[in-house]
């Protein structure tokens, strides 16, 4: 099998000098795909994503982007390399307008950003309507759109979302998933951590079930949804 | 080197500094430095209680020290003849009225439902109360200040033993600290710093301007002493005889005796406070304080009432500063509001605590004695240094004159530098917290 576009390969590590949280965990995503990390609380889902993004110490294993080893790079350097990351909380500049949020997203770019901004507005039309409003005044779902839009402004080669639907209502969640699928159709690989395992696996091309920092099950979203073991242990039957 | 050995050595070093001063300068100046050193150590214990135990940043030490000084005047001086009749009671009534206004405003605010009516009534109560207060207050002040303004012009005190002023000074400071703590604690740490900075400036402003209280910048001098007077000693044949047997002339012997008596008094207070502070540190209360300091969120989650605890220790620490302030004014024998400088009475104490070792009572005491010693000795050293530097210059050179004149400001620089260096390279101080 060819090398995936982005892969966190057999990663073991933890925060600072603390104990290991991840154990030989592997996560990968390819262009046009949505890969979803699911698992019970405390399974290390977000931790695995942060490891891929360089926010914790990976003691063994490696992270490779487009064939290049980026294990030693800081998160900021990874942004420059083309990784877009949307944190779970505090993921927008609340006191700044929607448009300024997008501008700040493109801070590392020196070229003309108006084209990208138009693309983001096309994806999230509501943002165009509210472009001069402070982002902090928007609703939960709209804030998440700002957050994703901000990350898209760097024209990343891969987009990583940490629980994008945390704390939003089911209707908004469906809408957000629709948007994410739309983003994925542009060919951008998406790696996502999700609490709502069933819905997430339904849209996933690839699913990773983590338990206690280890890969428990891996497969396509459909396979995992069909797997009786997976259903029984945490999809609730 | 084990800790006890190192600490003994450090204290030995400080003791040696004082002995050397005694030998090379004079026993008299060694004792003078020692006495203020003891008082400084007490202030350092107070600040250490707040900062070292609880992590509270008090930038108003000067104010609490000055309140202690005020207590010395209010307790120990004789009342001014006729002042109370002339206007004293009136002032007292006015102050009660003023306090009642504030209480009424607070009551209105807490009892009435929120809205425009409430704001209006509160405003009317405050403004009306203020004018009533001024109407009663002003004539009283004028009457008191008219009494023999060259020598008195103030209410005077209660004519009680001055030792009583020490705890009263603590109480006054505690009261002011309670007011500040009640407002600023529980908010960001910076706010307490700013609030204490403000209260200190205001206390000094009151002392300087309210002549009826303690004569303002006209100063109160000749406070009674808790120890004998030199003249009395020199007039006592027994004392003269005894000093002769030590080979001392009566004048020197009497100064030394007086200073030594102060030293003993101060040392007793210092030791008592040190023992109490040590017991407090090791008690469950002290452990809890430090737990709160190290992780406020966790302590709060465990059901500790962080703000109340902070208020307790803040009031306690400030009271100690007030006590030390009363002791200092007793030692000086006068209250001179013009001499209270934040550098000397707030900042210096902070340097003492941080250099000594924040969180460690012995560290605070060591820092207090050591830094005070340097504070006194840096000026002559600085002047000497400047003279050396400028010795090559022409006698009438403007730069030379400027540098010599500026030597006095070296203290600011040196103390700031010491603080920054210790914070940077040895943040735990000479005797670190265990």
């Amino acid at each position: 099998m060819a090398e995936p576009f982005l892969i966190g390969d057999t990663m073991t590590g933890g925060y600072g000098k603390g104990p290991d949280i991840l154990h030989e965990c592997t996560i990968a995503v390819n262009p046009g795909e949505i890969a979803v990390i699911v698992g019970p609380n405390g399974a290390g889902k977000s931790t695995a994503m942060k490891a891929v993004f360089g926010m914790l110490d990976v003691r063994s294993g490696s992270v490779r982007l487009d064939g290049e080893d980026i294990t030693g790079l800081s998160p900021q350097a990874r942004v420059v390399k083309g990784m877009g990351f949307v944190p779970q909380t505090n993921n927008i500049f609340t006191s700044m307008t929607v448009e300024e949020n997008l501008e700040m997203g493109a801070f590392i770019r020196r070229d003309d950003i108006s084209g990208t901004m138009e693309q983001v507005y096309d994806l999230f039309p509501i943002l165009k309507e509210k472009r001069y409003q402070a982002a902090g005044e928007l609703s939960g779902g709209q804030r998440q759109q700002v957050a994703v839009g901000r990350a898209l402004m760097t024209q990343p080669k891969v987009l990583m979302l940490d629980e994008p639907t945390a704390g939003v209502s089911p209707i908004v969640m469906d809408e957000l998933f629709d948007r994410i699928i739309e983003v994925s159709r542009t060919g951008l690989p998406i790696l996502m951590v999700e609490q709502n395992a069933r819905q997430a696996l339904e849209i996933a091309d690839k699913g990773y079930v983590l338990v206690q920092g280890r890969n428990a099950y891996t497969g396509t979203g459909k396979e995992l949804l069909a797997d009786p073991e997976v259903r029984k242990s945490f999809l609730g039957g | 080197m084990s800790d006890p050995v190192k600490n003994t050595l450090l204290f030995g070093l400080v003791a040696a500094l004082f002995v050397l001063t005694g030998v090379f300068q004079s026993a008299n100046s060694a004792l003078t430095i020692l006495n203020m050193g003891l008082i400084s150590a007490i202030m350092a214990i107070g600040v250490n209680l707040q900062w070292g135990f609880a992590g509270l940043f008090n930038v108003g030490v000067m104010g609490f020290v000055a309140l202690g000084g005020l207590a010395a005047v209010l307790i120990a001086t004789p009342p001014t003849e006729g002042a109370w009749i002339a206007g004293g009671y009136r002032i007292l009534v006015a102050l009660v009225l003023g306090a009642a206004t504030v209480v009424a405003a607070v009551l209105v605010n807490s009892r009435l439902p929120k809205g425009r009516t409430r704001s209006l009534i509160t405003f009317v109560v405050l403004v009306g109360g203020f004018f009533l207060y001024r109407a009663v207050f002003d004539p009283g002040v004028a009457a008191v200040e008219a009494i023999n303004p060259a020598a008195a012009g103030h209410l005077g005190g209660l004519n009680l033993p001055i030792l009583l002023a020490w705890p009263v000074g603590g109480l006054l400071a505690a009261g002011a600290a309670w007011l500040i703590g009640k407002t600023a604690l529980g908010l960001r740490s910076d706010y307490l710093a700013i609030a204490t900075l403000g209260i200190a400036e205001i206390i000094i402003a009151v002392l300087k301007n309210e002549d009826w209280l303690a004569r303002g910048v006209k100063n109160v001098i000749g406070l009674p002493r808790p120890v004998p007077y030199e003249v009395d000693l020199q007039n006592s044949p027994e004392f003269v005889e005894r000093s002769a047997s030590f080979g001392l002339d009566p004048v020197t012997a009497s100064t030394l005796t007086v200073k030594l008596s102060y030293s003993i008094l101060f040392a007793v207070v210092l030791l008592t406070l040190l023992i109490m502070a040590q017991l407090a540190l090791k008690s469950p209360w002290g452990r809890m304080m430090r737990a709160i300091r190290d992780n406020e969120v966790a302590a709060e989650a465990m059901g500790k009432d962080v703000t109340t605890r902070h208020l307790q220790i803040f009031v306690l620490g400030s009271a100690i500063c007030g006590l030390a302030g009363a002791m200092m004014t007793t030692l000086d024998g006068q209250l001179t509001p013009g001499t209270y400088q934040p550098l000397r009475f707030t900042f210096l104490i902070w340097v003492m605590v941080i250099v000594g070792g924040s969180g460690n009572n012995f560290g605070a005491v060591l820092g207090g004695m050591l830094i005070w010693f340097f504070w006194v000795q840096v000026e002559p050293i600085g002047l000497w240094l400047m003279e050396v530097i400028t010795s090559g210059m022409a006698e009438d050179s403007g730069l030379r004159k400027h540098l010599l004149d500026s030597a006095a400001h070296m203290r600011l620089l040196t103390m700031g530098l010491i603080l920054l260096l210790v914070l940077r390279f040895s943040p735990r101080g000479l005797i670190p917290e265990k």
Partner: protein
Amino acid sequence: MDFLNALVALSNFVLIPAIAYGSQLALGALGVTLIYGILRFSNFAHGDTMAFGAMIAVLVTWGLQGMGVGLGPLPTALLALPVAILGCMALVLVTDRLVYKFYREQKAKPVILVIVSMGVMFIMNGVVRFIIGPNDQKFADGERFIISAREFKQLTGLREGLAIKTTQGITVVVAVIAVVLLFWFLNRTRTGKSMRAYSDNEDLALLSGINPERVVMYTWMIVAALATVAGVLYGLDKTFKPFVYFQLLLPIFASAIVGGLGNPLGAIAGGFVIAFSEVTITYAWKKVLTYLMPEGLEPSGLVQLLSTDYKFAVSFVILLIVLLFKPTGLFKGKAV
């Protein structure tokens, strides 16, 4: 006529001085609030930074006066201002590199930074006193008044005169220019926006590729400029004396907190709230009231609520009220 006279007296003794003082406080508070927003601590050395900047301006002004260079009716200090700003920038950047950077890398608690800033305050204070001495220094020159009380009386025939000092006019003009420039910078330029972003959400700013050290550097430079302008304007309007700048710390902090720490707009509003309260409460209203009250009812006393010796008490009391009832300030600040 009496009403007009009262109005003129009010303007002369309350409104104009308060507007000038408010502008000075607002500029000072802007510096404090920017440091708070970006570096997240209350900078106790701000008053002495102002003193340092003003001191350079004083020295340069003396130099220019010595060479016979001047601005005619305007004070020479305006010419010295750019030099002073540069000098002050150099000072704070060196201080940041030598002192604050270490604690930033350690991610030290804000209270540690406050203590450190106190150490810096005393060193700066010492340096200023060492160079220029602790005494009052005069450096204002040029025309003293835009309009003097006598001219105004002749012009209008009113009994009350209205005097506008040149320094008051300059204070307002310079403050307006400085504030417009600052807000233009913060809201319109990339660097300014990155500063706001960093102040709003540090982690996300890092994720967006904003370089924190650059943000910090720009912040210090802006703060140095604001502090110098504030210090020079205050010195021109009143007098230059090192200790006075330390005492200004309290009203400046009060302004920043009243407005909401970290909020530039709040700092300006706070400056004027404090200035107007201070001036109205310590002003003797007798003159104004005498014009307004019917004959026979004129006040006998001075009608001064508080003696000017207690002007700091005014900012302090306002500060306490805000802390008690609205710790985030009038405009929403960052701190609780």
